[in-house]
C-alpha cells in the first residue's frame, strides 16, 4: 500500500483495509546500516555522535540502534533502577536521535539549508498521577544517572525491585519511507523545489513571488521501561510547504499549500508536485474574486479533508483523558452518553499507513491503535496515556505523545477522523439556503473547559439558494463544540484526509497530527466576516 491516490483523498474502505495490511509488520533494523546523518556527501556515520551505530554485538541484546551511542543493557538497567530508587508506579527512559533538514527556495534559487541534529534522553518517574521529569543531552552513564536521580524526587518511598534484564518489544510498521532521508542528498532535493517553483510561475502569469521549504525528519527512539520492556522505533516524516504571492490590477493575494506524511523521497513525484503548485496558484488567484465574508450565525458546510480540523478543535482535545482525569473537560463524565446524532462516528487512528499523525508505538511504548471515540453518536472512549489509563482503570490507547526527549508525554491526538455518513455531498450543499462552504483552514483553537472553539478560514465560498457561488476568505469561525456536534445535520459519504497534516500544540509541545472528514453540515456557527 505504498502508492496512494494523492489529492483525491482515501475512501473509508481503502483506509481501513490499508491499515489492516500494515499491521503485523515488524520494524526492520535496516536503518542502522543505512544511517548516515543529514549530509549528502557520503558520510557513513551519524554526524551528531560518533562512533556510528554499530551492528548488534550480541544477538541477545534488546538494543540495536542506540548501541552506536554507547548505550547497552547495563547502562539502561542502572539508569532505570536509579529512577526507581525512591519507589514510584513506573518509570521510563526515552532516548532520541533526530535529524531534521529544511531546504529552502526563494526568488527562484535553492539557496538555504537549516539542519538540526538532536540527541538526548528524557527520564520520567511516575507516582500515581504525579510526574518527575529530567533530560540530558549527554548520554554518559553518569549524566543519565544524574537525570534519573533528579526525576526520582517525585517519589519518596523505598526502592522498587531492581530490573536486571530487558525484553525487546515488537513494533509494527505503519510507514515505510522506501527511500529514507538519511540516504538522500541535497542534490536530490534541489530539483524538487526548482520544478515546483517553475511550475507555479508557468501556471498563471499573475504569480510574482514563490517561496518553498522541503523538510525531512528522521527520528530514532528507544523507550526503556521499568516493567522490563525495551522498544525501538524509526520515525521518518516529511513536509513540503509552498507559498506564493499573485498580483492582479494592483491587488495582491497570498496563500500556501502544505503536504505532510511519514514517508521518504518517493513521496514527491513530478506529477504530484506540479499538481500541488497548480492548486496553490488556483487557491491564491481565486482570492481576487472574493467578496467580504458574511457576519453572524449561519449554516456552515465543511468540505472533505482539511476542514477536519473541526474534529480536532471542537471535540478532539476535549476527549483527551488528562483533561478528563482532572475533571476540567466539558466531556468529563459523558462516556456512554449521546453527544452526537446517530450517523456520527469519530475515531482517532495511529495506524493509517504513511499519514502524518500515524505512529507505530506511542512515546511511552504503548501500541498504537484505532481508537473509537464516538460510535453512532455515543461517546465511547477518551484518548489515554499511561497515567490516565491507570486513573480510569482502562488499557492505554497509545495516545501518550511528546515533541521530543525534552518533554514528558501527555495524551495527544494522532489522525482524528469522522467516518462516512449517509448523505450525498450534493444533497448537503443544496439543503442550504444561505450559508458558507469551507474548503481550507489555516489554524484553530479550543477552550477545553467551556467547549468553545475557533478556526480560521483561508478559502471558502458562499452558498446561496443551495448553490456554491462566490469565493470568500479571511474569516474566523467560532462555535460551541458540544453544541455543534450535537446538532450536526448531515454527514457525507466522501471522507478524505486533510493532506497537509498539522502541528498540534499543547502543554507547549508540538506533535504532528492528521485529520479526515467527509462533507459535513453544521447548522449554526458564528462567522466573523467583514460584511456589516
Amino acid at each position: 500500500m505504498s502508492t496512494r491516490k494523492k489529492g483525491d483523498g482515501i475512501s473509508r474502505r481503502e483506509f481501513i483495509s490499508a491499515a489492516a495490511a500494515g499491521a503485523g509488520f515488524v520494524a526492520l533494523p535496516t536503518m542502522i546500516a543505512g544511517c548516515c546523518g543529514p549530509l549528502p556527501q557520503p558520510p557513513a556515520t551519524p554526524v551528531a555522535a560518533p562512533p556510528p551505530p554499530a551492528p548488534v554485538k550480541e544477538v541477545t541484546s534488546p538494543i540495536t540502534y542506540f548501541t552506536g551511542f554507547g548505550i547497552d543493557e547495563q547502562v539502561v538497567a542502572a539508569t532505570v533502577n536509579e529512577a526507581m530508587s525512591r519507589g514510584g508506579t513506573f518509570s521510563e527512559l526515552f532516548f532520541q536521535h533526530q535529524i531534521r533538514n529544511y531546504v529552502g527556495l526563494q526568488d527562484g534559487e535553492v539557496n538555504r539549508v537549516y539542519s538540526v541534529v538532536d540527541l538526548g534522553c528524557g527520564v520520567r518517574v511516575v507516582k500515581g498521577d504525579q510526574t518527575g521529569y529530567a533530560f540530558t543531552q549527554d548520554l554518559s552513564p553518569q549524566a543519565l544517572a544524574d537525570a534519573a536521580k533528579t526525576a526520582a524526587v517525585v517519589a519518596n518511598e523505598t526502592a522498587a525491585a531492581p530490573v536486571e534484564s530487558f525484553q525487546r518489544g515488537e513494533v509494527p510498521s505503519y510507514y515505510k519511507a522506501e527511500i529514507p532521508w538519511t540516504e538522500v542528498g541535497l542534490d536530490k532535493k534541489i530539483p524538487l523545489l526548482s520544478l515546483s517553483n517553475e511550475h507555479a510561475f508557468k501556471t498563471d502569469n499573475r504569480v510574482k513571488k514563490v517561496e518553498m521549504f522541503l523538510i525531512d525528519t528522521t527520528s530514532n527512539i528507544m523507550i526503556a521501561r521499568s516493567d522490563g520492556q525495551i522498544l525501538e522505533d524509526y520515525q521518518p516524516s516529511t513536509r513540503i510547504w509552498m507559498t506564493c504571492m499573485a498580483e492582479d490590477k494592483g491587488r495582491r493575494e497570498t496563500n500556501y499549500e502544505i503536504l505532510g506524511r511519514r514517508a521518504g523521497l518517493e513521496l514527491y513525484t513530478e506529477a504530484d508536485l506540479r499538481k500541488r503548485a497548480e492548486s496553490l496558484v488556483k487557491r491564491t488567484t481565486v482570492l481576487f474574486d472574493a467578496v467580504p465574508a458574511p457576519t453572524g450565525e449561519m449554516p456552515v458546510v465543511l468540505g472533505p479533508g482539511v476542514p477536519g480540523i473541526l474534529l480536532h478543535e471542537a471535540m478532539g482535545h476535549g476527549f483527551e483523558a488528562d483533561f478528563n482525569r482532572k475533571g476540567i473537560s466539558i466531556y468529563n463524565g459523558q462516556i456512554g452518553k449521546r453527544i452526537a446524532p446517530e450517523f456520527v462516528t469519530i475515531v482517532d487512528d495511529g495506524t493509517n499507513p504513511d499519514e502524518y499523525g500515524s505512529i507505530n508505538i506511542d512515546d511511552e511504548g504503548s501500541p498504537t491503535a484505532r481508537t473509537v471515540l464516538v460510535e453512532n453518536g455515543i461517546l465511547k472512549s477518551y484518548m489515554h496515556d499511561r497515567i490516565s489509563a491507570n486513573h480510569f482503570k482502562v488499557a492505554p490507547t497509545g495516545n501518550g505523545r511528546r515533541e521530543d526527549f525534552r518533554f514528558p508525554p501527555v495524551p495527544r491526538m494522532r489522525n482524528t477522523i469522522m467516518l462516512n455518513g449517509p448523505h450525498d455531498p450534493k444533497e448537503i450543499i443544496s439543503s442550504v439556503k444561505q450559508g458558507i462552504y469551507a474548503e481550507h483552514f489555516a489554524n484553530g483553537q479550543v477552550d477545553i473547559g467551556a467547549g468553545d472553539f475557533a478556526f480560521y478560514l483561508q478559502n471558502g465560498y458562499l452558498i446561496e439558494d443551495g448553490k456554491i457561488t462566490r469565493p470568500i476568505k479571511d474569516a474566523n469561525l467560532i462555535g460551541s463544540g458540544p453544541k455543534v456536534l450535537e446538532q450536526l445535520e448531515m454527514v457525507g459519504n466522501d471522507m478524505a484526509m486533510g493532506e497537509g497534516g498539522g502541528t498540534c500544540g499543547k502543554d507547549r509541545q508540538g506533535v504532528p497530527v492528521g485529520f479526515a472528514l467527509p462533507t459535513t453540515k453544521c447548522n449554526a456557527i458564528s462567522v466573523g466576516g467583514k460584511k456589516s
Partner: protein
Amino acid sequence: MTTKLIDIAKSAAGVAKAAGANDARVLASRSREVKVEWRDGKLDRIQESTKKDLAITLFVDGRYSVNMTADLRQDALKKYITDAVAMTRLLAVDEHRKLPDPKLYQGEAPGDLQINDPSITSVQADSRLATAKQIEEAARAGDKEGAVISVTTEVSDECTDLACVATNGFEGEDTRTAFWRVAQVSVKDEGSRKPVAWSYSAGRFNGDQSPAEKLGAEAVERALGLRKTKQVASGRYDLVIENRVVSRLAGQLAAPLNGRSLQQKQSFYEGKLGQQVASKLLTIKSDPRLPRGLGTQAWDDEGMATIARPIFEKGVLKTFFLDTYYASKLGLEPTSASMGNIVWEPGKRDAAAMIKRLKKGIFVTGFMGGNSNSTTGDFSMGIKGFLVKNGKIIHPVSEMNIAGNHLEFWKQLVEVGSDVWQSSANRSPSIRFKKVQCSGS
C-alpha cells in the same frame, strides 16, 4: 574539553574557517530550567533540566546554511562542521548572504541592563513548592460558592548563558534569567461547561513577580466571572481590550514589518514608510535596552548592537525590522530584525476607568483562534470578554468575532491606557476602539 561557552563558540568558528568557510557565526547557549506544577493540593509535575545548543551559520563561497547540534564534543563537532561546509557548497550562490558590517557590532555600551538575577542559583526546591501551594490556597480562598473544580499552579525559573562569535570581529556573552508564576482555575457552570481562567506573572528578577496571593485571587475571580456567557447580536461595538491580550492584535500589526514579508511582497506596509497608518494616539517604540525588560538584549541574533527606535509615532510608520540579508535584498540599510521590548506611550486611565465610560461595548479579555493576512491586512479574531452597557459589566460573552483590516482598524483607536502590562516583552496598556464590526448571533 573546555566548558566556557565563548571558547566553544570560538573553537567552532575556527573549525568552520579551517574547513573552508569564508565566514561563520556561532551562537552557543546553555540554559537550566526548573519547573514545578502543583494541582489540587499536591505536586503534579516537577521538571528540571539543562539544555545546550550550538547554532553555526556558515558562509561558504557565497552560499549559506545554519546548522544546529547539541553535541559539543570536539571530535563530533569537527566532523559535523566539516560535513556542513561541504553540503553548503551544493547550494545556489546568494550574493546577499554576508555577516553584518563590523561597525554595527559597536554601539553604545549597554551599561547594566539588569537581565541577570544572581539570586537564581539560591532558589530552593522547597520555596518553589511553597509558592505554588500559596497560589492555590489564595485561589481556593476566593471560592465562596464551592464552584472551583480544579486549580493548577506553576512556578518556574530559567537561567540562560549565551555566547556569540562572528569571524569578522564580534564576540558577545550574556546571562539572562527569567521567573514565572502561573495560576489556572476551572469552575462549574451551567450544563457541562467548565470555564477556565488564568493569571500569570513573569520577570527577569524573582523579586519583580506578583505576590502569590494576588495571582491566586485574580485567577479565581476571572474564572467565576466567565460563568453564564451569552452570545450578543452582531453589530458595531466599542471595544476596550485588556492590556495583557493586546499583543495578540498588536503582533499582527507588527508582523509584516519584517524584511522577509517586505521583500516577498507579502506586507501591507509596502510603500507606507513615513505615512499615517493608524490613529494619532498610536506611539510605540522598540526598546531593546529597557532595564529588566523581558525582551532586553544588548546585541541581536546577528551580533548587531541594539538601539531604541520608534515604530509608530502618532500613527506614522517610522521603521522596518531588517536583518543584513533582507536589507541587502531590498537595497536598504539593516536596522536589526529583533524588536526587543515593545513600549507604548501610555495614556491617563486604566481599563476599569475606560469601561466606566463605555455606553455600549465589549471589554475584551481574550482572543479565540483568528489570524491576519499580512499581505492585505485583513483579519478576523474570536473574542472573549464582557458586554458593557452604560459603564457597567452586564454578562460574559462567547462565540463572537471581530473582523477588519489593520490599515483601517487602527485608525479607530481612540484611547491608550495607563495600565502597562509588565509580564511580557510586549508592554502594552489596555486600549479602546470605536465602532468595531462584531459578529455574534
